[in-house]
């Protein structure tokens, strides 16, 4: 059975072009770039070139502002713990209630260590209110860390604007954004619209490079302590022998994303929009999470009222379709995702969320297949649900009234 991979916000297929670029550094050019002999100059030059490429693609920043890490989680940890350690006179951090765990749990840890953290709320569409943000700014605000796009819903946050407001308020405030879901997909200009951002995290495996490589943009002059102490690599800002092959792969993947962006993004968005339209038309009581907010073009997060997400994923999987869910049974805890809870998705729907995320490799035929299969999967589970009237194909009357009390979805 062919796999239909629609979980690209989790990870992506490695582009064959990227693998080709990496191969020499996994075979003949294995030398440590820090070594003195001639043979090491190949890997050293390759890193230098990769750094230049990435710096250019982030909006012509300086190459020495790009740090290589092992993943976006490391980049986020470095950005947050590093700035907190280097700016001990300030003790207040602003983030959002819907961050990826790599920021959310770091922020929770800061609270445990005695810092004060504001988690900005979102509305039912997943949007932040700028007035909340402004009110949260304080004289001792150290760091603002807000993601560029949410991994679960694809909702985009106005981080450029937030960075400007923070800097106009107090240039001492450091602004970080976890851009793991946007780098590659959206053009990022750290010398232009994003010039107020000090730190930006992302990883390779979300943009068709392999897992195990991440990067952190760190603007010159940003006060930040290293997380990994060791050798003098990355100018002493991140110890550890450079992961040459993966660094080269990351640069190649970013080049490919940039080259393909103009053709890819409209095509991907059109597929997503079609998927959304068709599913909404075919499935009653289906809600699109994040509808009404600006969203990434590749992400569709739907919530099916009165059924549970794990059983949906299981059936999808039996058809070879890979997607993910924010339901409790798939989250590893007994609670549905904190993102959907922050959006106040009604409890009649929150357990039945499914996320489809597309990529360059997604095809119309794959989307067709999901449109064909998904409605029956939902119907199968609803037939089993004590809240559903299978004969009338609608919720039972008592379940309908639960929907009203469960904070009706925002349309």
């Amino acid at each position: 059975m062919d796999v239909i991979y629609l979980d690209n916000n989790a990870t992506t297929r490695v582009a064959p072009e990227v693998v080709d670029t990496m191969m020499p550094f996994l075979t003949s050019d294995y030398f440590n770039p820090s070594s003195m002999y001639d043979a090491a100059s190949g890997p050293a030059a390759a890193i230098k070139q990769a750094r230049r490429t990435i710096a250019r693609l982030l909006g012509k920043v300086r190459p020495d502002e790009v740090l290589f890490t092992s993943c976006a989680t490391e980049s986020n940890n470095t950005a947050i713990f590093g700035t907190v350690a280097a700016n001990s006179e300030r003790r207040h951090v602003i983030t959002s209630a819907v961050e990826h765990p790599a920021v959310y749990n770091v922020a929770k840890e800061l609270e445990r260590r005695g810092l004060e953290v504001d988690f900005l709320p979102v509305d039912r569409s997943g949007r932040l209110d700028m007035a909340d943000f402004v009110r949260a700014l304080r004289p001792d605000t150290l760091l603002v860390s807000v993601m560029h796009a949410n991994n679960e819903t694809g909702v985009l946050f106005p981080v450029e604007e937030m960075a400007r407001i923070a800097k106009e308020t107090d240039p001492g405030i450091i602004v970080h954004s976890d851009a793991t879901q946007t780098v590659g997909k959206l053009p990022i200009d750290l010398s232009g619209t994003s010039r107020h951002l000090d730190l930006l995290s992302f990883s390779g495996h979300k943009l068709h490079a392999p897992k195990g490589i991440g990067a952190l943009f760190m603007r010159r002059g940003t006060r930040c302590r290293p997380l990994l102490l060791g050798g003098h690599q990355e100018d002493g800002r991140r110890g550890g022998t450079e992961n040459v092959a993966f660094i080269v792969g990351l640069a190649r993947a970013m080049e490919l994303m940039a080259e393909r962006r103009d053709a890819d993004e409209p095509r991907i968005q059109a597929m997503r929009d079609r998927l959304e339209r068709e599913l909404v038309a075919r499935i009653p009581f289906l809600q699109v999470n994040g509808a009404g907010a600006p969203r990434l073009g590749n992400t569709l997060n739907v919530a099916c009222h009165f059924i549970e997400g794990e059983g949906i994923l299981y059936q999808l999987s039996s058809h070879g379709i890979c997607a993910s869910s924010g339901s409790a049974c798939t989250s590893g805890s007994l609670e549905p995702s904190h993102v959907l809870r922050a959006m106040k998705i009604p409890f009649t729907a929150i357990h039945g969320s499914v996320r489809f995320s597309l990529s360059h490799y997604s095809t119309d035929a794959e989307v067709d297949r999901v449109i064909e299969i998904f409605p029956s999967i939902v119907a199968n589970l609803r037939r089993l649900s004590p809240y559903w009237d299978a004969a009338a194909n609608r919720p039972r009357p008592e379940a309908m009234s639960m929907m009203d009390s469960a904070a009706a979805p925002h349309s």
Partner: protein
Amino acid sequence: MTWNYSQKTTELFMNAVRGGPGSHMGEIADPDGLGEHGSIACGDALRFTFRVNRHPSDPRLDVITEARYLTFGCTSAIAASEALCAIIEEGSYTPIGALKITNDDIVRYLDGLPQQKIHCSVMGAEALEAAVFNWAQRRGVNLAELGIDIQRDEQEEGRLVCTCFGLTEPYILRKIRELELRTIPDITNAIKAGGACMSCHHTPGGLQDLLDQVWGKQPTMLRELPVLPTARVPAERPRSELSPYKFAKEVERVIDQQVRPQLHKDGGDLELVDIKDLIVYCRLVGACSDCVAGGQTLKLLVERALKDEIDERIRVVAV
């Protein structure tokens, strides 16, 4: 995290969703026993119904002939519901005899369940118990006289321990004993208590205290105490000589008199979002909000007016 369900579990699930032969999905109209457990808010819920072959003289000798379920829940919750119905139908139980079926029997029927999914089997046993109680009421059987005590009211009456899942002290205590739960993860796996915000784990009267009450106090690891906040040094920022209240009043007055009239002409307006010392945050609304020159307008118009009228050091930040 991938699924590690037994083949039996996945077979029962897939057969149920496909509505295949032998599935017990459904609801018996006008049943002899009906029991429910769980809620949609908590993530799983089961409605269980059965029909009996009525004994002509002694209802205690009724025999369950048919069992059906409707389940909202994950793969294993649905499989556990199938298992429950199958066990009952295959065993020709009397309702009272069916009370001997435990969640362990369900787990065994499924060839095992992952630890975190044990609560799915517990849900089945609970719904069965509720249905038998319901049958007893309908058939006028006094279970208490038979020495069977089904505490139907403990959920309503006891002190709430885990608010996330709405579980009370008597219920949790009973389950700790019945299912021999020794640790907080045991409790969470079996009845979900403590599986969400976790604030009920170590509070006084919380899950650990209930465990200690049943099994005696076990030596526990010292938990790390939070580090206390250090004194913070606020950054110096220029302030107005006016009190914050007076200053805000002044800002509003100037905006009302000098800025709003101009914006109104174009069908727009200005919203004052916040004031921090000498920084005034505002945003354009209405017709002006889409104007490309919006930020500029604010800067020029509002900042100039405020500087002239109140304080040269005022800065305006567009939101």
